[in-house]
C-alpha cells in the first residue's frame, strides 16, 4: 500500500512540470506534499492517477501502475482539481455514476454523502455548489470505494474553519486505519498540523523527503539580526563552523548558528559596539519559503517595491 515514484518526469512541450522525482509514500501516516504554486504537485497527482502519462520514469500504486488495477477506485481515492463534476448533474448522480463503474452499491453512495455532510444538497445540481461543498463532494468521491491509498490535492482550499478541522481529523483517521494518505498543500503551517512525513518539491524537483519533526528541527535554527558600525570585523569574529552570516546592508548582519547572548559577549570582549541585537524565531513557513525560494515559479515583487508602486 504505497505510492512509489521512480525518476518520474513530465514535460509539457518545452516546460518540465515534474523533474526526476523519486519518493515513496508509506501507509499508516499522513504524508504532506509541499511546494509553492507551480511546483508540480498537481501534475504529480495526475500522474499517480493515470490522467497524465509520464514522459520518463514511473509511478506505481500498490505495486502496479494505476490503470493496471481491476478496481482502481478501491486502490486510490483521489481529490484532484476541485471541479471534476458536471455542473448540470446532482452530487448524488455524480457519485452514482462513479459507483456504477465498480459495482459499488447505492447504499455506499448515500453513506459517503451523509458522511461529508452533503445530505441536504445531494439532489441539487452541482453547478450551484460553493467551493467548500465542491471540496466535500470531491472527498466523497475519493472515499467512495473505501480505498487503501488516498490522494488529496489541496483539500482545505475553500473550506470554512469547521471544514478545515474536519479535514484534519479525517486525514488522521484515515492514516490511523492504516491507509496511505498523500496530501498536497502550499501551506507549511497546515502540513505541520496534520502530516508526519513531508515530500517537498519546487519547480518539479525533489527538495526534501523527510519527517516533519526533522524539518522543524532543521528549520528551528534561529536567526539574529544586528547593527554595528564594525559589522565587517564582527563578521570575522563570529566566523566558525556551522555559522552563517549574511548582510543586507552596510552595518547590518544576519547571523545563524550563534545565539544572541554569544554574539553580545563576543562583541563586548572585542570592544565592538552594537546598536541593535535582535533574535528572530524562524517560523516553519519561513523555513519552507527559504527551502523553496529558488524554486518559486511566480515571484511577487518584494514588499518594499509594492509600496513604491502604490505610492
Amino acid at each position, binding site marked *: *500500500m504505497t505510492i512509489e515514484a521512480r525518476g518520474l518526469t513530465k514535460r509539457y512541450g518545452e516546460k518540465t512540470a515534474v523533474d526526476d522525482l523519486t519518493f515513496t509514500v508509506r501507509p499508516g501516516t499522513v504524508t504532506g506534499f509541499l511546494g509553492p504554486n507551480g511546483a508540480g504537485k498537481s501534475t504529480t497527482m*495526475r500522474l499517480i*492517477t*493515470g*490522467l*497524465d*502519462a509520464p514522459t520518463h520514469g514511473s509511478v506505481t500504486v*500498490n505495486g502496479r501502475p*494505476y*490503470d493496471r*488495477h*481491476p*478496481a*482502481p*477506485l*478501491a*486502490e486510490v481515492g*483521489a481529490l*484532484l*482539481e476541485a*471541479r*471534476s*463534476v*458536471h*455542473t*448540470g*448533474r*446532482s452530487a448524488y*448522480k*455524480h457519485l*452514482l*455514476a*462513479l459507483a*456504477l*463503474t*465498480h*459495482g459499488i452499491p447505492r447504499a*455506499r453512495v448515500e*453513506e*459517503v454523502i*451523509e*458522511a*461529508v*455532510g452533503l445530505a441536504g444538497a445531494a439532489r441539487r445540481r452541482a453547478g450551484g455548489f460553493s467551493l467548500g461543498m465542491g471540496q466535500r463532494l470531491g472527498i466523497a*468521491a475519493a*472515499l467512495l*470505494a*473505501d*480505498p*487503501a*491509498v488516498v490522494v488529496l490535492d489541496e483539500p482545505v482550499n475553500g473550506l470554512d474553519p*469547521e471544514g478545515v478541522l*474536519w479535514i484534519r*481529523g*479525517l486525514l488522521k*483517521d*484515515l492514516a490511523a*486505519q*492504516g*491507509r496511505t494518505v498523500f496530501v498536497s498543500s502550499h501551506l507549511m503551517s497546515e502540513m505541520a498540523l496534520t502530516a508526519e512525513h513531508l515530500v517537498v518539491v519546487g519547480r518539479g524537483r525533489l527538495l526534501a523527503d523527510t519527517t516533519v519533526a526533522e524539518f522543524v528541527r532543521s528549520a528551528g535554527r534561529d536567526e539574529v539580526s544586528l547593527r554595528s558600525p564594525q559589522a565587517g570585523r564582527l563578521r570575522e569574529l563570529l566566523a566558525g563552523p556551522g555559522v552563517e552570516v549574511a548582510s543586507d546592508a552596510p552595518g547590518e548582519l544576519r547571523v545563524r548558528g550563534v545565539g544572541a547572548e554569544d554574539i553580545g559577549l563576543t562583541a563586548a570582549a572585542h570592544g565592538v559596539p552594537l546598536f541593535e541585537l535582535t533574535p528572530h524565531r524562524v517560523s516553519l513557513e519561513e523555513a519552507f519559503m527559504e527551502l523553496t525560494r529558488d524554486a518559486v515559479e511566480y515571484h511577487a515583487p518584494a514588499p518594499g517595491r509594492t509600496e513604491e508602486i502604490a505610492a
Partner: protein
Amino acid sequence: MSTPSLTAPGPGGTGTGARGGAGYRVTYPRVLRSEWSKLWSLRSTWYSLAAVVVLTAGIGLAVGATFTDGGGDGPQDPVEVTLLGLNFGLLILPVLGILTTAGEWSTGTVRATMAAVPRRLPVLWAKAAALGAVSFVLMLATALATFPLAQAFLADTPIAAGLGDPGVARALVTTAAGASLITVLGVAAGALLRSIPASIGAFVGVLMVLPNVAPLLPYEWVGDAVAYTPLAAMEPLAAAHPPPDLPTVGAALVSIAVWAAAALAAAALRLRRSDV
C-alpha cells in the same frame, strides 16, 4: 463532524482496501450502466430528445396537412415528405453526442470519469453505444408515429402510402439507423476535439457547409463523393423509392457507418495517447 461511516465499518473495512477485493471491479457492462445513468441525469438530454420528437412529428404533420401536389421540385417521396422534420433531429442528436463527450472536458468531469475507468476506451464505447441505441429507438418510434399521422392528410395525393407499401418500412428503419450512426459520429467528434464549440464547428463545417461548397469545384468526382457524406447519404435512407442518381441504400448506410467508425477510431487513438 464525525466521520465513522466514511471509512466503512464492518468486516474487511479496516482501511486496507480489502473491500476492493470483495466484488468491486470495473467491467464493460458496469461502465455502460454508468454512462447510461450519466446520460439521463442531465436535463440537456431530456430537452434535446424532446425537441427531436416534437420537431420531427410537428413538421411531419404540418407538411402533411399543407401538402399540395404542385409537381414542383419539392420531395416526391411518401416517406421523405413526412420526415422533413428529421433534418432538425440530424442536427440536435449529433450535438447531444458532442455534449456527452466534449461536455466532460468542458466541465472537468472527465477527470473523475477517467480516474474511475483509467483504461478509458470502455467509456468511449459505452457513450457511443448508449446514445446510439437511444437515438435509434427514439428515431424509429418517432418515424413510426409520424409517418401514418402525416399520411392521414395525404390519402388522395400521389404520395399516399401505408406502412405495408414497398420501401416504406425499410425507409423508416434505415432513417433511424442513419440518425443513430450520425449521433455516434457526434459522440466521436466530441471525444476527438474535446471542446463543444470546436466540435460543433467541425460538424457543421465538414458535414453541412463543405458538401455544399465542394461541388462548385470543377471536378465531377467531387459531386459524386459529396453524396457519400453522412448528411447527404441520409437522403436515400429516408426515401421509400430512392432516386437512381443517389447512392444505393446499402452504400449510403455503409458510408455513414464508415464515417462514424473512422471518427470513433480517431477519438480512441487520441484518448489512449494523450493526457486527459
